[in-house]
């Protein structure tokens, strides 16, 4: 009997287990944002001229936005003003200049990844996952590059892409999220330090799940990664990203940009399991996750599918979107967002229908526990030319306890009379009767909540690659610990 009680107590009191700090020498630029910082970042990365120019344009634009106080304030989240001069914009693990093989990676770094359960070594080959790991701001090592290269697939860090494939970068960078897009995307454009780059050539189906692992390690740094994925005609690729950060008292800024481009008959599947440090039980510390993610279905019959499981971060501000430009193109958004303790999330999607017979599906599952505030914000826009466009939206909220909140802001804008829209929404509470039923069958209160929540999220988990689905379920259970008293 007492074992059961102890287990619950242990679970309830277990802290964020990814919260270790790695002792690795870093190379960082002084705090503050100015033209000098940007030139320094660009120089450190040995970037070509066009890249520096682009960064500087973004920086100047951001300065004007900052001056006119254009930081977005419409989101349903609260946080004290951010001092952008008090952030270090570049922090990289100190390294030998270039890494040729895994043996050259700092062993301490490899141990960190092992702690995270992300073995970079051969094991991943069997799992069929190629990993690119971004530690603080710099991409550390990319596995299986060789195998992919044989098929013409480029999977590398963004910095490498800028150096080795400048024509591709120049062609697609900013073509989905221009540097003028929004305050945080503009900031990212000026100071981004690394990220991932994927190019899948015509007619190639990428045989592996490509995966990037992001981790913020250094204190008082921001992480500004930038990811660009291009699927050429008839190509397809599935990409996964995972994120963690150590426990720190102060808030850390994470402002990433992800751009996806799908040409004719191409497909991109982008899955995220976001578990940045959410802050402690009193709401102290945690990551501000202000991210711009957008995909462009540029070609006919193209398809972009976003799946996200958001359990971490103190604040999440994120709307992975699809611009459905090509005729018959398809956009999908499947989301689970969980807020516990004092976490806040304002997340959702935008589906912009431009092409004929374009279709979009939105399935959003928000879970609020503790004092968490969870907002779904979604826009479906069907423009004049989008004859035969269809959208289906399902938006469900689940409340655990009586101090949390769920909010829904759907925006629907239809300018073509042939469009078909469906919107379903529900809000429910985990019922005492459900809990009692499961516990009467022998499950602990924690397991009962976890089971109900996993059932609630099933529609979304089904969209995740198998091994991620299992991880996501576990993550959800861990994130909910202590939510039932």
């Amino acid at each position, binding site marked *: 009997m007492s074992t059961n009680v102890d287990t619950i107590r242990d679970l309830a009191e277990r802290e964020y287990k990814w919260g270790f700090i790695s002792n690795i020498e870093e190379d960082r630029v002084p705090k503050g944002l100015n033209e000098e910082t940007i030139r320094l970042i660009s120089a450190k990365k040995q970037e070509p001229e066009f890249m520096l120019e682009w960064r500087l344009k973004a920086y100047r634009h951001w300065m004007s936005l900052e001056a006119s106080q254009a930081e977005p304030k419409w989101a349903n989240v609260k946080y004290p003003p951010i001092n952008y001069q008090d952030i270090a914009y570049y922090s990289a693990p100190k390294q030998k200049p270039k890494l040729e093989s895994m043996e050259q990676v700092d062993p301490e770094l490899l141990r960190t990844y092992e702690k995270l359960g992300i073995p970079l070594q051969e094991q991943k080959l069997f799992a069929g996952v190629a990993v690119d790991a971004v530690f603080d701001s710099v991409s550390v090592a990319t596995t299986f590059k060789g195998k992919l290269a044989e098929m013409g697939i480029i999977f590398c860090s963004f910095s490498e892409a800028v150096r080795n494939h400048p024509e591709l970068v120049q062609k697609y960078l900013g073509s989905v999220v221009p540097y003028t897009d929004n305050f945080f995307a503009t900031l990212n454009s000026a100071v981004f330090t690394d990220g991932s780059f994927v190019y899948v050539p015509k007619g190639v189906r990428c045989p592996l799940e490509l995966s990037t692992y992001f981790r913020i390690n250094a204190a008082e740094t921001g992480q500004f990664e930038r990811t660009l994925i291009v699927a050429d005609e008839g190509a397809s690729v599935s990409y996964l990203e995972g994120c963690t950060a150590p426990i720190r008292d102060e808030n850390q800024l994470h402002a990433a940009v992800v751009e996806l481009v799908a040409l004719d008959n191409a497909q991109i599947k982008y899955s995220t399991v976001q578990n940045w440090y959410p802050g402690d039980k009193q709401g102290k510390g945690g990551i501000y996750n202000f991210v711009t993610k957008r995909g462009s279905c540029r070609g006919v019959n193209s398809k972009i599918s976003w799946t996200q499981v958001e359990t971490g971060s103190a604040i999440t501000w994120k709307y992975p979107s699809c611009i459905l430009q090509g005729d018959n193109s398809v956009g999908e958004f499947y989301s689970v967002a969980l807020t516990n303790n004092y976490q806040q999330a304002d997340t959702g999607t935008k589906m912009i229908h431009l092409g004929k017979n374009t279709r979009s599906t939105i399935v959003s599952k928000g879970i609020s526990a503790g004092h968490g505030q969870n907002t779904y914000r979604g826009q479906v826009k069907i423009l004049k030319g989008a004859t035969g466009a269809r959208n289906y939206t399902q938006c469900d909220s689940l409340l655990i306890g009586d101090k949390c909140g769920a909010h829904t802001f759907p925006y629907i804008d239809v300018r073509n009379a042939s469009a078909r829209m469906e919107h379903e929404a529900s809000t429910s509470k985990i019922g*005492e009767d459900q809990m009692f*039923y499961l516990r009467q*069958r022998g*499950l*602990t209160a924690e397991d009962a909540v976890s089971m109900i929540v996993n059932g609630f999220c099933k529609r979304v988990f089904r969209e995740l690659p198998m091994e991620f689905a299992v991880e996501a379920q576990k993550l959800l259970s861990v994130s909910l610990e202590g939510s039932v008293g």
Partner: protein
Amino acid sequence: MSLLEIKDLKVRVDNHDILKGINLTVNPGEVHSIMGPNGSGKSTLAQVLARREAYAVTGGEVLFNGKDLLAMKPEEAACEGIFLAFQYPVEIPGIGNAYFLRSALNAVRKYHGQDEMDAMDFLPLFREKLKLLDMDEKLMNRSVNEGFSGGEKKRNEILQMAVLQPRLAILDETDSGLDIDALKIVSKGVNAMRSPDRAMIVVTHYQRLLNEIVPDFVHVLANGRIVKSGGPELALELEEKGYAEIEDTRQPMPA
């Protein structure tokens, strides 16, 4: 030792005294039926024995297998061997029936220090019990009780009971909402589980269930107290005369 000993149990719900001093002893192998009019406290008693926390116990004592049942959480009572077949089984969307039942079985096994059962071992057991209750295999992967008919839900309760093999099964109006064929199937499932080391408490309004599941003892609960106890013939008497008459002839229950 008796399996269940209820001594002067008093329960209050929303400032109303619902149970006003229940005494009942159940030994292994016995089937007890609790009958009584609406609002007499039958379901409350069933829920309290399954440790529903919303019901406040204001007095008395309950020993299950010699242990203080009232100190247990619902999951502890379940793992100790108490099973409640719900009057209104609850839906759990998105969780497959088989997965749920295996999780429950493993929770109980773990509690007793036994190895957990994997899906491969569980499947034959689950199939066998499905057959016993004449249930479609399709129900295996459907969400727990979601979209089940009233009869399917009740059968699903007995299916769970057959898999979990409790020491004390409490059936709370399992016959309500069942047609005569379903009633026979459910009863067959319950009767198959009667054994010298398992006891049952069958809560019902009607005699018809007791034609199928013949109890050893019948107790009449009225106004929060057991007012009459007897053998199966008492159920027939009730069917004939109704509850009103019995309530007047209040007498203490034999020890």
